[in-house]
Structures are given as structure tokens and as C-alpha cells.
């Protein structure tokens, strides 16, 4: 057989995966709905998940596999029951509530009203059944996703600005932030830093920029975090992290402080529409960023 013939045969085998390939390319990020299949990812943990419940800011994510036979804890969703183009196994018993921020892009959706209409797999025979170990690893992955967070933990990181600054000469602090007045106010916990000031100071202290920012900024409001956590915003954060070659969590935080700074310029601060502020922030910063869909 010639190389071309072998390759032609290979291409025909890939055909049934085209729906997934297209989904990876288009990376749709609508608001999640029950019955959706998504790619979920946080840091280096990635899998396919079925959305069984949506209760913002959480969703119930059920792990899905494309290449493992179901056991009696799982159901089999044949291609007639969804638009993924390949048979999948939905590990119903191994789902858990995870923050919506872990949803990366949508792959498709279930075409039947519920997973209760799908057939369960065959009996799992215990610890030596390969599906037992697979389920353990899926549960471990879901647990890591359930803990996914980017917002600084208020109790752990705030309020230590004085202790942090005491490790540096006052003159070094002045040089980093640009004025004696600002340096003194910082020490008293009365001033906040711009990203550039925080970056210069962080460099001298050997700590992440966002740690300084979170130590000098007011705590991020829950409403702002919730407004950032939707898939559409997450996709923009990811693109920014990639374009600037920064850590993702660092980027989430920088964006959130950017939104805060934007909101602080408002005259009426009694009521902030965070969704609108988040949108305005990204509209201002993202156009300059090249989009690379191949990640």
C-alpha cells in the first residue's frame, strides 16, 4: 500500500470525530445550560463534562469519556442522543458541583430530555475492573476542578502589606512607587497601587504582582467575581494570558483589578453593574490582542 493510500484510510477513520474537531476550533462560549457537553479545564486538569445542573456560580459537572466502556454507575449516550458524533460514556455517579469558571468551551448537547433515558453499562466487578481506576482518576480531576479559584483569599493574603514592606529599605519602596508620600501611605495601608507600581515593587520583593495588588486593594466583591466567571469572560482572560504570556490566575486577578479601577472612576458608586464594567474593560484592552484559536 502506498503512503497516500494509507493516509487516505486514516482520514476516513477520523471522519466521525469532525464534530468535536469543529467544536475545538470554534470554541463557542454561550451561557451554560443543562444538557450541554463542555470541555472543562483548570490549570493542567482537563476533561469533557456533561452539565447536569446550572446554579450560578456553580454547575454540576459530570465526567464524560470518549474511549471507555460504561459500567453500571454510568450511562452510554449513542450518537443518536447528542451531536458529538461519537458514542460517549457519562459517569453519572461521579459528578460534582464545580465553579462555572472551569467551563472552557461548549462541545455539543444532549438531544434527549434527560440521562435517565439512557442505558447503563455492564456490572463493575470491583477493584481490578479497569473502570474502577478510571472512575477514581475522574473523581480526582473533578475534585481539583471544584477547588478552582483565582480570586485572592481575603483572609490569607490581605492585610500583610506592612509586614511585606518591612523587608525592604524605605528608599527602595520610594524608588519603586515613585514618591515618598505614596510610600508612606502604603505603609499605613492607606493607598492602592497601579499595576505598573505593583510590578516594580513586586520585582524588588520577589513576590507576584497580584499579591501586592490584593494586599493594597479592597477585597474583590463577590458580584464582580461572579460577573467574571462566565465562560465568555473566561475565554477573554485565557486569550489575554496567552497573548501576554502570563500565568492564567495572575491574569484573572489583573483583569479583576482593572475592572475595579474602571468602576472606581464612576460618580455613582452605590450601584455597580459589574457585567457592563467587565465588558467595557475587555472591549478596551482586548482589541490589541491577537487571537490564537489553536490552544
Amino acid at each position, binding site marked *: *500500500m502506498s*503512503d497516500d493510500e*494509507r*493516509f487516505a*484510510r*486514516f*482520514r476516513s*477513520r*477520523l471522519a*466521525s*470525530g469532525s464534530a*468535536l*474537531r469543529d467544536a*475545538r*476550533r470554534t470554541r463557542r462560549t454561550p451561557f451554560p445550560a443543562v444538557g450541554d457537553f463542555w*470541555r472543562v*479545564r483548570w*490549570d*493542567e*486538569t*482537563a*476533561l*469533557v463534562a456533561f452539565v447536569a445542573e446550572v446554579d450560578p456560580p456553580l454547575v454540576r459537572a459530570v465526567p464524560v*469519556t*470518549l*474511549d471507555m466502556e460504561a*459500567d*453500571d454507575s454510568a450511562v452510554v449516550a449513542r450518537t443518536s442522543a447528542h451531536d458529538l*458524533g*461519537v*458514542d460517549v460514556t457519562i459517569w453519572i455517579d461521579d459528578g460534582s458541583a464545580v465553579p462555572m469558571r472551569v467551563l472552557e468551551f461548549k*462541545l455539543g448537547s444532549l438531544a434527549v430530555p434527560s440521562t435517565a433515558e439512557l442505558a447503563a453499562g*455492564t*456490572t*463493575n*466487578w*470491583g*477493584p*481490578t*475492573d479497569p473502570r*474502577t*481506576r478510571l*472512575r*477514581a*482518576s475522574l*473523581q*480526582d480531576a473533578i*475534585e*481539583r476542578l471544584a477547588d478552582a479559584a483565582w480570586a485572592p483569599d481575603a483572609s490569607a493574603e490581605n492585610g500583610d502589606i506592612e509586614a511585606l514592606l518591612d523587608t525592604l529599605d524605605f528608599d527602595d519602596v520610594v524608588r519603586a512607587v515613585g514618591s515618598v508620600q505614596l510610600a508612606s501611605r502604603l505603609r499605613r495601608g492607606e493607598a492602592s497601587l497601579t499595576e505598573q507600581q505593583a510590578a516594580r515593587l513586586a520585582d524588588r520583593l520577589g513576590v507576584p504582582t497580584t499579591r501586592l495588588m490584593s494586599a493594597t486593594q479592597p477585597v474583590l466583591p463577590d458580584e464582580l467575581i461572579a460577573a467574571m466567571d462566565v465562560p465568555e469572560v473566561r475565554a477573554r482572560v485565557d486569550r489575554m494570558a496567552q497573548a501576554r504570556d502570563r500565568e492564567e490566575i495572575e491574569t484573572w486577578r489583573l483583569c479583576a483589578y482593572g475592572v475595579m479601577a474602571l468602576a472606581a472612576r464612576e460618580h455613582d458608586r452605590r450601584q455597580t453593574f459589574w457585567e457592563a464594567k467587565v465588558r467595557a474593560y475587555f472591549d478596551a484592552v482586548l482589541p490589541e490582542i491577537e487571537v490564537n484559536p*489553536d*490552544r
Partner: protein
Amino acid sequence: MGDHAAIRAGEQRAQYKLLLRLTRQAVGRSGGPPMSGHVRWTDDALNDLVGEVFARKGQFVEAGLLQTTTDSKLELYLLTAIENVLRDMGRETERFRLMARLETILGAETEFFRHLRPYKAWRLRSAPVVAWQGDIGRLIIAALRLRGVVATTWNRSGPTPRSTRDAIVRVAEAALDEAAGYVRDPDLAEVVQKCVPAVPLDPDETEQPTDPRIVVIIGHSEAAPGPDDELEVLPSDAIADAIWHAMDADERRAVPHLASDRAVASALGVPRRTGAAIAASAKVKILSGTAAGTEADVVRDLCERAKSMEDV
């Protein structure tokens, strides 16, 4: 290891090249015989193996792309999928040989009844003449309750050692008792294969399915007992050998740490539940292969093997 941006972007030629490279690597590591219909691992044979992986694992390339985040994890995912298929194929060849072996061994025991119609099957003489149509997991669960079942080898030519024969008879009896009907040969052979730790066949032997020495006549008892049959109790190193072969690489590495699931997880660098699952599987393999009271020697032997594996 290259930059897999082209593969993530869905470039099929790049995916094809990567799969061929990983398939060649998997074949090299397994040392097994080439696919049926091939005499060597040529590009055509590798291509057929890629096709086999697609047939068994569906869209495993897309699965790998969606479930991994780095190039090295993607390669490991795909390589593992290919190796699993190679291993499953090896087991199926072995199962075919085991079916022939079951005819000899169970045929010599009065409690087993042979069916040739509507298909080749076994039942206990005391069981009703109905076809078992249940779930193989149930039969495996019933057979896994037994202890001290181990086979020094599945089906070398010549008489089967008594320990192997006893293990096969006991497991088949437990499974057929659970089935309460007649069970197809491939299903029963699969239960035996999953429940009896055994040293696998050499690749050379799997290549000779028509070896005249293994052709048996149903209903005839085996050839006269050979010297192996004198062995009442298997030495612990033979038992350890069989269990070692039944373990995968993770289970082998876990052996010295089985006192604690946490220790297994940290030694293997895997998360908590995965570590516990590996430990549980390794323990079941040790327990089913050993008789009560004999575990200590076997575990000691397995630990030494694990240590020498680490030293390499």
C-alpha cells in the same frame, strides 16, 4: 517530542505522523508479534494497528486532545491507548488458547457438562439447561471471592500443573454456579483469565495456534500426570511470578507501599483516589493468587521485584 500546535489545530497529516511514530514506539516496547496477516511490523502493519485502535477506542485522538493540556501528556495518552489495545489483542489470542485448554481440563471433571449446540458452552451438571444471558461482571465477582487461585502458565503444551488445573476448575465452578445456565466458551475463558493470575504465553507460542500438541479430544482426560503434577503446593516465587505478570506497571510500583493508600499515592505521584484505586487493585490480585496465611512470603518476593525494578 515536538510542538503539537498543528495536531491541536486538526491537521490530519500531522496527526497521522504522530500516531505512526507512537505506534512504532508501542510495538517496540511490547515486543509482541506483528498483527495477524503480517510477518513483520511494516508500515502497513503499523497502519493496521492504528485502524484497530480506532475500531476499539473510537475517536481517541480527539479524546486525547480534549483531556490533556500539554504535548507530553497528549503523547502519553495516545501511547497508553495504543499499548492497551496491543495488550487486549494479546489477551484475546491467549483466550483462544485457553478455550482449548478448558475443553481438556473441564472435560475431565464430572461436574461440568459440555454443550456444542447452539454454540460451544459449559454448565454445571446440576444447573438447568438454559442459556445464561447475564452480565459477565457478575460471574467475575463470584469467582473473585476465591483465594489461592494462581496459574504458573495458561496453556503450555503438555499436562497442566495441578495448581493451574485446580485454579481453573475452581474459578469455572464458581462462575458457572453463579450463571445457573450454560455459558459460552469465550465468556467463561474471559472470567478465568480475569480471575486467575497467570504468567502469560511467550509471544513465540502465541504464533503457533495449530501446535498439534495442544489439540485435544473432548471427553478424554489429560495425558498421564507429568512430574509437575507431583507439586502439591506451589513455591511462593512461582505464585509471585504469576501475580507479578498479572499486575500493571502502577500496581507493581505500588507493592512496597501497600500498607497505606496515601503512601501509594505519593510514591506514584498520583492523586488520592487514584492511589487508593491502584492499591486496592494490587491487593485483590495478591489475595486471589495466595491462600490464607501464605501472603507474607509472596509479598516479600513481590517487594524485591519492585525494588529491583526501581533500581534499573
